[in-house]
């Protein structure tokens, strides 16, 4: 007797249909085999299925069982074939029919219950794409799957429940999307800008970075507040729209980063990998390529603290994704593309001991050490960082004195409003192009969209001479001043915008 159950296979974020063919032969020695290029996780499925069935109180058929995962030349990975395989076997032993237009997805526990399984969102999206009406997923993953509207998501708790459902003894009610009740506007900001005292220039740099999508480098002594500033960045970025939310959630779903019961991700991701991270950990990799930190930071912020402690090879691998907003990982068996459009925030100490230019502590480094350190900090990736800012240690006493009068610093929400409108302006400007923000402009587009008047050009030329700016820095200053002008809702770039942009030129200190 041959039963066919539909399931799915992932390759990065793309999906293909998998037919799970379960054959329970009338003759032959009792065996249980899974074929169709299963990896270890899939092959172990047979032990899980067998034990789960027995623990559910079903006598496991002592017959020759063959499970084929078709197409047979695609490597299969993941523990979620447990449910389709179990469903196939059960339909034979328990005598029920598996209805058409259904998809099964989920990992079994040995006691016969279903576990939270990564990739439920991708499976649901696939079902919708294939016009499959019903999908059966573990109860804990159902919330994630309901994000995709237009299909019925059946949350399954145990195999026993599934059996009685198919035997029409009990009902399983399709899950409803909980996220639809959660309003986008109610997202709590983790670190509010108003909580950060002082650091006015660094905060302004964050605002410009958020508005134009510029990458940012902060240098400052330990304890100056670089990490806190970076953590405040996601809170001032415009809220994720539905499409962006789905993009982010897909990546998190495929890598198992959505907690049980979790749903659509509404807040901007913030990732801060430690500098001992491997190259595969940062950009993604593995023989069955997994997304790296850069993809998990998609549409959010990638914060690299102690930037120059990262191995050179790891940092170099960032170049392509920073430029293109996505990264293709090619392996012999598959080629996978993950999106990676994020704002890079790098932080570094100004010297090896960390206290150069510090007002409270003396630097103990020699010139040689400092110049060697600086050399490590430079390189091609630094060319892709538009904004450079120094973060000095805030002198609490001085600050408290000067803060007696003026009002509290602005809240993230207020800054976000400015940024959102600056982004709108950019969106309108680049409506005919493939880019969305000023930071993405290449030379051709800079020439096309940015016209400087004579006064501004004169200032810029004068500045590039007295600050000895490179040609690349010159263009960066133009891009930054465009963003500053957008923040000020000024159509023209004025000299004051250029003058402010020059504050963030590289190589000061």
């Amino acid at each position, binding site marked *: 007797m041959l039963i066919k159950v539909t399931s799915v296979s992932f390759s990065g974020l793309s999906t293909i249909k998998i037919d799970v063919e379960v054959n329970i032969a009338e003759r032959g020695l009792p065996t249980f085999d899974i074929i169709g290029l299963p990896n270890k996780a899939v092959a172990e499925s047979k032990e899980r299925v067998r034990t789960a069935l027995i623990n559910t109180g079903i006598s496991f058929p002592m017959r020759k069982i063959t499970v084929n995962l078709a197409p047979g030349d695609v490597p299969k990975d993941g523990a979620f074939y447990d449910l389709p395989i179990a469903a196939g076997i059960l339909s034979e032993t328990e005598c029920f029919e598996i209805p058409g237009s259904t998809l099964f997805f989920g990992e079994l526990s040995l006691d016969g219950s279903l576990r939270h399984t990564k990739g439920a969102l991708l499976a649901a999206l696939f079902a919708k794409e294939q016009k499959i009406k019903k999908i059966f997923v573990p109860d804990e993953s159902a919330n994630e799957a309901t994000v995709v509207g237009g299909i019925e998501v059946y949350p399954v708790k145990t195999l026993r429940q599934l059996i009685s459902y198919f035997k029409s003894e009990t009902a399983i009610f399709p899950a409803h999307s909980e996220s639809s009740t959660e309003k986008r506007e109610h997202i709590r900001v983790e670190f509010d800008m108003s909580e950060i005292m002082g650091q006015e220039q660094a905060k302004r740099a964050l605002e410009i970075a958020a508005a134009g999508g510029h990458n940012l480098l902060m240098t400052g002594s330990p304890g100056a507040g670089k990490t806190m500033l970076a953590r405040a960045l996601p809170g001032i970025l415009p809220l994720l729209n539905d499409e962006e939310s789905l993009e982010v959630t897909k990546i998190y779903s495929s890598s198992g980063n959505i907690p049980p019961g979790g749903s659509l991700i509404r807040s901007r991701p913030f990732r801060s990998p430690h500098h001992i991270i491997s190259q595969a950990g940062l950009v993604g990799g593995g023989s069955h390529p997994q997304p790296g930190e850069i993809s998990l930071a998609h549409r959010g912020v990638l914060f690299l603290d102690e930037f120059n402690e990262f191995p050179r090879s790891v940092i170099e691998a960032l170049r392509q994704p920073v430029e293109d907003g996505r990264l293709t990982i090619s392996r012999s068996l598959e080629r996978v593309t993950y999106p990676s459009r994020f704002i890079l925030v790098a932080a570094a100490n100004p010297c090896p001991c960390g206290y150069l230019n510090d007002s409270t502590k003396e630097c103990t480094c020699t010139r040689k050490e400092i110049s060697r350190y600086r050399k490590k900090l430079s390189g091609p990736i630094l060319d892709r960082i538009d904004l450079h800012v120094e973060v000095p240690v805030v002198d609490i006493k001085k600050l408290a004195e000067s803060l007696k009068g003026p009002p509290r610093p602005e809240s993230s929400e207020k800054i976000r409003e400015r940024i959102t409108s600056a982004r709108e302006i950019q969106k309108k400007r680049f409506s005919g192009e493939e880019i969305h923000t000023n930071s993405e402009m290449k030379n051709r587009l800079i020439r096309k969209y940015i016209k400087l008047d004579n006064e501004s050009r004169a200032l810029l030329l004068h500045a590039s001479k007295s600050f000895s700016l490179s040609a690349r820095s010159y263009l960066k200053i133009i891009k930054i001043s465009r963003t500053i002008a957008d923040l000020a809702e000024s159509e023209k770039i004025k000299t004051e915008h250029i003058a402010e942009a020059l*504050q963030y030129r590289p190589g000061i200190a």
Partner: protein
Amino acid sequence: MMKAGCIDIKSSEYPPLLKMISDPPEKLYFRGNWDPGIFTETLSVVGSRKNTGYGQIITENLVSAVSVSGITVVSGFMYGTDAAAHQTAVDSGGKTVAVMPCGIMRIHPEHQESLYRKMLLKNSIAISEYEGDMQPARWTFPRRNRIIAALSPALLVIEAGIKSGALITANYAKKYERRIFAVPGPLTSSVSLGTADLIKKGAYIVTCADDILGFYGRFYPFTNPDAFSEKDEYSKSDYVLKILSEEALSIDEIARKALKPVSETGSDITKLLIGNKVIQKGGLYYLNRGGKRC
């Protein structure tokens, strides 16, 4: 390309001031174009290896005024104040003498090779009492300092720690009865304590280039445009100059004091920076007072 040679103590071209001390080098090795005229009017400049932004600015201000007046600047070619002094002298078109702590064929520290080449190209010289490519040693630095002190009628100490090579040089200068000038600095800075000590013990305090030039019977030939006189395009950012005239501050502090958004202050200060009205060193902004007053 780089000429090298040796001057014997018996030679008439041997620097006369150096000959007067009790233990002058028997042979003085040099690199560059030897011209005994370079030693006729000299000022020795020493300071901390770890000079602060303040020290850097003072070095630039004083040395440029001294250099422009035609006085040769003698220093030790170490990084920090020494390098700043040599660099400024070369940049102002003046002459400078580097007294090396190592064999004459060696450049120490190595990473300042470009400065070394630039100096020699501009008719300045490097000298040493050691031949060949001898490595510098702990004891060669203080020995070298006696030459720096001896070569000039006056010694300018920009910044010095309480136990520092600059103070060793100052002790030699005292022994040789040279005039000692010391630059006052904030007492919170460890590299201003040595100079404060010198002043306490009777060194001449320097507050402007004329203090030094007066010793040589000169005065600073240029009147610097006063930072506050040009009203036109800077009038908008006058508040920055006013705030900075009290003390050097970071941009955040300036904005806070002026009660203005940092975006506006940043914009204003960049214009002042381009206009050379303020100087940026080590994360702080200083008012550019030129060489007239430091």
